[in-house]
């Protein structure tokens, strides 16, 4: 286990707590919308219990900015906190869950699959383990273009759970990142249960962190219910990746605080198991109150602020247009009329980036 290499600034800890609060309240609203039947089909998938770990990542990443390509983030199912801390606007959370045409996925994909390539957020596919290779590809692109010199690289971050850790795709992706010595940070939320299957039916090694050495990547571990530990450990991992030390894998032990999705009551998680894990958010609220970094009134004030923001975002999204089958551009290909049109190789070769379809 790596000792934190820096002391945590009080402002950073408070900001972290605020991202956690924000994510929890958004999740609770999404669950409520689901129960009201306001989410078109499917389910909603919450990050409850994983906010400390996920937000720590989002806070340590650098989003794109003028003159800076920025880090890349491929969030997984339970990374609302990390997304928000990385700069995903609340309105996009609402639009995609409510499948509005105005949202970044335009109703063509929903909920946690949302991504925004302009914000360097990759849209995940449901197939677990697929994203690390794509993140590695983005980092490899930057390396090939010579943009990753020095000790201040763009990093690529993604997340997986104890379940997804067992896929072949994850293995291939992490191995490729290690071979290419890419600045990739993989967060592993060992949340005890993959859908309804417990860890003893998922993996047989003593500790998922033991795999780091096998991949040739640096392993880190933290208590995922301890916000300060998450902030310090994830911060250390991101810093090392940025400095050129290659891929970093951070394993956090925690408990999934909800069902797989809100359609699932998680009744298979026993009371005994629940009693062994703290809730990262309530622990950190108490801790910072005791340390007099925040007051109960501060927390109530922030909750009220966030609730008001959520109300506005949800109301705005609900007032926006849904996709219209009659207006839809029903093409899975960006190239049109390939049989009759010659591809313009010259303009393709000189374009800085590929063309983007205009958003409505």
């Amino acid at each position: 286990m790596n000792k934190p290499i820096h002391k945590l600034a009080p402002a950073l800890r408070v900001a972290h707590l605020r991202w956690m609060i924000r994510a929890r309240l958004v999740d609770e609203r999404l669950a409520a919308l689901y129960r009201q039947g306001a989410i078109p089909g499917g389910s909603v998938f919450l990050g409850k219990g994983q906010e400390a770990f996920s937000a720590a990542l989002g806070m340590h990443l650098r989003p794109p900015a003028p003159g800076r390509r920025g880090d890349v983030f491929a969030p997984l199912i339970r990374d609302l906190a990390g997304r928000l801390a990385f700069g995903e606007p609340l309105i996009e959370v609402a639009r995609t869950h409510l499948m509005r045409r105005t949202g970044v996925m335009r109703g063509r994909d929903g909920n946690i699959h949302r991504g925004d390539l302009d914000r360097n957020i990759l849209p995940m596919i449901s197939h677990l383990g697929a994203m690390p290779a794509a993140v590695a590809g983005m980092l490899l692109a930057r390396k090939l273009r010579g943009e990753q010199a020095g000790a201040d690289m763009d990093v690529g971050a993604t997340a997986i759970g104890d379940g997804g850790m067992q896929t072949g795709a994850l293995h291939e992706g992490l191995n490729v990142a290690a071979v290419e010595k890419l600045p990739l940070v993989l967060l592993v939320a060992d949340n005890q249960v993959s859908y309804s299957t417990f860890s003893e039916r998922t993996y047989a090694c003593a500790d998922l962190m033991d795999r780091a050495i096998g991949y040739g990547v640096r392993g880190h571990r933290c208590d995922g219910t301890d916000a300060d530990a998450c902030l310090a450990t994830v911060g250390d991992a991101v810093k090392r990746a940025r400095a050129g030390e290659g891929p970093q894998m951070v394993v956090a032990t925690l408990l999934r605080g909800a069902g797989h999705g809100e359609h699932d009551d998680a009744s298979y998680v026993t009371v005994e198991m629940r009693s062994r894990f703290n809730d990262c958010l309530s622990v950190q609220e108490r801790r910072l109150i005791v340390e007099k970094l925040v007051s109960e009134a501060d927390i109530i004030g922030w909750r009220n602020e966030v609730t008001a923001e959520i109300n506005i975002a949800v109301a705005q999204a609900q007032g926006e247009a849904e996709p219209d089958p009659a207006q839809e551009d029903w093409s899975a290909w960006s190239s049109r009329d390939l049989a009759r049109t010659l591809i313009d190789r010259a303009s393709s070769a000189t374009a800085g980036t590929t063309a983007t379809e205009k958003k409505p």
Partner: protein
Amino acid sequence: MSVRYVDAIRLALGDALERDPRVFCYGQDIAAPFGGAFKVTKGIAERYPSRIINSPISEDAMTGVAIGAALDGMRPVIEFQFADFASIAFNQLVNHAATTYWRTGRPCPITARLPVGGTKGAGPFHCQMPEAWLAHHPGLVVVFPATVADAYHMLLDAIACDDPVMFCEHKNLYNHLKDQADPRDAPRLPLGAAAIRRHGTDCTLVSYSAMVHTCLAAANDLAREHGIEVEVIDLRCVRPLDAEAILESVGHTGRVVVATEDWPWGSVASEVLALVTDRAFHYLDAPPARLCARDVPIPSHPALQAACVPDAERIIAKVLETVSY
């Protein structure tokens, strides 16, 4: 000058690497000095050592890396050592690459090079044709160059295409198909256009990949021995399919036979027959027919293998049956 099919692919890769700094190649054993299992990158790998990169035996990650690189502005060309192994990357190809444009509005310009088709004695896992399972998924472009000139131009077009292109190159053509002309001087057709390789009035014979050459041999025999003029269509691109070219030909011949190296069930051949039946039924003078590979895993023994793939003799018999209906 004599240019083989494999040389044309190498020439196209070299020209793409030379012209476009966004292009790089990634695959198993493709770097210098080895230059790939079929030596496609041999010679150019030395010229671009940092852009022709070996991958581990990780087809899924190789494809995922290409997707990520494409989304970051590159034009990756990945090489599957054999098309058969693209099944390992099925998920990244059909769920990730193929859905990206539809989901995000951002194109995913990757080129996957897949050496396809049967070579003598290579057996069930080194001879497959992947088009049915790739072309099934909206979002992928699936192409089969059958000539030296197409190998060159279609690869450059695949790399310039904004969509993910499955570039299926037939292993039997690599060294056996030669052209005296420089493919760079040959005329270029649109990537998705079918080509009429032989004009005829009695029956349309639809094919793609190496089977085009078997069809042309059969057509020449039919003309010589039977006085039957067959129109041979080389699909070149099986997805999207150049429906107009097929329908126009069937419109004037009234008969169609499809010959492919792939299995029959849920295949490009069945799709062509469905198209003709749907949209040209009233032009037909005979039932539309197809000849595909025998519906078994590909056998290793050359005699068994040869019995599985349509040859000129069987194509001639099927055309005669159709024409005399």
